[in-house]
C-alpha cells in the first residue's frame, strides 16, 4: 500500500489554488524549516466570506496536499465556517494521513486561521495576542513547554540555540 492515500496523492500532484494574492486582506505564515514544513496562506474577504484563498508551501507531500485541501475547504466559506476547519477535518477529507505526518505537516488549518486572525486584527475585530503560540508551527496549545507537544513537536529550546 502506498504511504499516502489516493486523495493525498491527487492533491499533492495537482495542488489547487497555489499562489499568492497581491494586496491580500489577511496573510498567515506558519512553520519553520527546522520542522520541515512552512506554509503561507493568503485570503481575500468579501461580505464575510473567503472570496479567494491561495498559499505557498515548503514541505513534504502531506504538507502540500494539506494546503491544497484547506484552500478548497475554505474557499467560498464564511469566516466562521473557515475557523472551524481543523487538522482532523482536513485529514479526514484527505482520506487519512500517515501517523507521523499528522502533526508536523498538518499545519494548513493553523495557517488559514492565522490569515483570518490577521484580517480580523487589521479590521479591528480582534486584539493581537499570540503569547501562547509555538514560534515554529504557531500551535496554540504551547503552554510554555520546551517541546511543542501538541503541534510540530520541535524541541523549541534546542532549535532556538542551534
Amino acid at each position: 500500500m502506498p504511504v499516502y492515500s489516493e486523495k493525498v496523492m491527487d492533491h499533492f500532484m495537482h495542488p489547487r489554488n497555489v499562489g499568492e494574492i497581491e494586496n491580500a486582506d489577511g496573510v498567515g505564515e506558519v512553520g519553520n524549516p527546522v520542522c520541515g514544513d512552512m506554509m503561507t496562506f493568503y485570503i481575500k474577504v468579501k461580505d464575510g466570506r473567503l472570496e479567494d484563498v491561495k498559499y505557498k508551501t515548503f514541505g513534504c507531500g502531506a504538507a502540500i496536499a494539506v494546503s491544497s485541501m484547506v484552500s478548497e475547504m475554505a474557499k467560498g466559506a464564511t469566516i466562521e465556517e473557515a475557523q472551524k476547519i481543523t487538522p482532523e477535518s482536513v485529514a479526514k477529507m484527505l482520506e487519512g494521513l500517515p501517523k507521523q505526518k499528522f502533526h508536523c505537516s498538518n499545519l494548513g488549518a493553523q495557517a488559514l486561521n492565522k490569515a483570518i486572525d490577521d484580517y480580523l486584527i487589521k479590521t479591528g475585530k480582534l486584539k493581537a495576542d499570540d503569547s501562547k503560540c509555538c514560534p515554529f508551527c504557531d500551535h496554540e496549545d504551547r503552554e510554555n513547554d520546551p517541546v511543542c507537544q501538541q503541534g510540530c513537536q520541535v524541541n523549541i529550546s534546542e532549535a532556538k540555540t542551534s
Partner: protein
Amino acid sequence: MTKVYLDHSAAAPLLPEVREAMMPYLGMDFGNPLSLHDWGDAPRDALEEARVQVAALIGAANPEEVIFTASGTESNNFAIKGLALAQQNKGKHIVISAIEHFSVMNSAKFMEKLGYEVSEVPVDKNGLVDPENVGKAIRPDTVLVSIMHANGEVGTIQPLAEISKITKEKKVVLHTDAVATCGAIPVSVKELGVDALSLAGNPFYGPKGSAALWVRRGVRILPLMDGGIQEGGRRAGTEDIAAIIGMGKAAQIAARDLVERGQKLTQIRDQLINGLPAKIPHVVVTGDLVKRLPGHASFCVEFIEGEAMLMMLNSQGVAVSSGSSCTSRALKASHVLLAMGYNHEIAQGSLLFTMGIQNKPEDIDHVLNVMPPIVERLREMSPVYSKFIKANKGGQ
C-alpha cells in the same frame, strides 16, 4: 514507464547467483550446523565456507575472527556495547564521530545510561573527520573509538588508516562501521589498522538478514546475544544459514568484481554529480567529491523539501531517498548534514541517489530529464523561494 531504481543504500536486489546458493538451505539442507548427525554436515560446511569468503573480502587473516550477525545494526550494537563493556575496568569513555549511523550513535547513547561518557568528533563541510581531532578527543579513560568508514548519506570516506595510527599509539581499540564500504571499495582490515569492523551483506547484493562483525584476535568483546555456543560463544542463536551462505557468495563475487564495478559506478555517479548542478541552479553536492563512494551522489536542492521531490520523482519511475532510509520517516533533519554545517532549511532539501550494478548511463539521463521540471514546480510553490527571489530583486 521507465523505471529507475537509485536507492541501493536502502535496499539492493539479490544477485541471481546468490539466490541460487541460498536455495538448498531453504530446502533439503535445512539442518542445524551444530547437529552431530548427517543433517548437520552441509550447513556446517556452508557456514565455514561463508566465513572464509567474508574474511577474504575484508583481508582478514583468520576466518575465525568473523562473527555472523543479522544486520549492520546488530554488528554496530555488538561492537559498541561489547567492546566497551569488555573493558569497563579500564575506563568508560567512548569517542565517535558526529556523523555516525544511528546504530552506532544510539548504541553509544545507551552506554551513557550505563555510566559511560561519549565524545563526538566534529566533521568539516565535506563530512571529513580530522585525525588530529580524534587524537585530541582520546583521554586516559578512553576504551573505544568508533569512526565509520564511509557515510551512507553523503558518501564521504574517512582517513581511517591515519586515524588508526593514533589509536594504536594511544592503545585504544578502534572500531569502524564499514557497512557502506565493504563490497563497494577495497577494504582491508590490515591496511585500515582497525580492531573491529562491521559489514552487512545486502549492500553488496547479498541477502537482508546477513551481516558480520570482524574482531581482531586477542581483542576482548562481550556478546550482545547471550545464550548458546554458536559463533564460538560470541553470538548465540540458531544461525540463519541461508542468509549466511548468501552473504558468503555475494562477498566472493564482490571481491572478484570490485574494480570493474567501482569504475562503472564512479562513471555514472559523476555523470549525475556533474549533470544535476549544471541543469538546475542552487543545487549543492554534499560530501567530498574525491574521497567518495562510487555510485553515491547526494545533493541539497535549495528552497524546496526532499520528500516532495522524492514523491514526484517516484511518479516519474525514479526511486531515491532523502537522507538515509532510516531517517526518512523520522521528524528531524539529517544529523549528518547539520554536523557538516548545513542549516536546517538547506538540509531539508537533501536528495540521495545510490546506484547499483544494474544501472546504466541512460538511467542518469532520465533523471537529468525529469528533475528540472520537478524542481521548478516545487520552487514555484515555495514561500522560501519567493522570498529569495524578492530579496534578490530588491538587492539588484
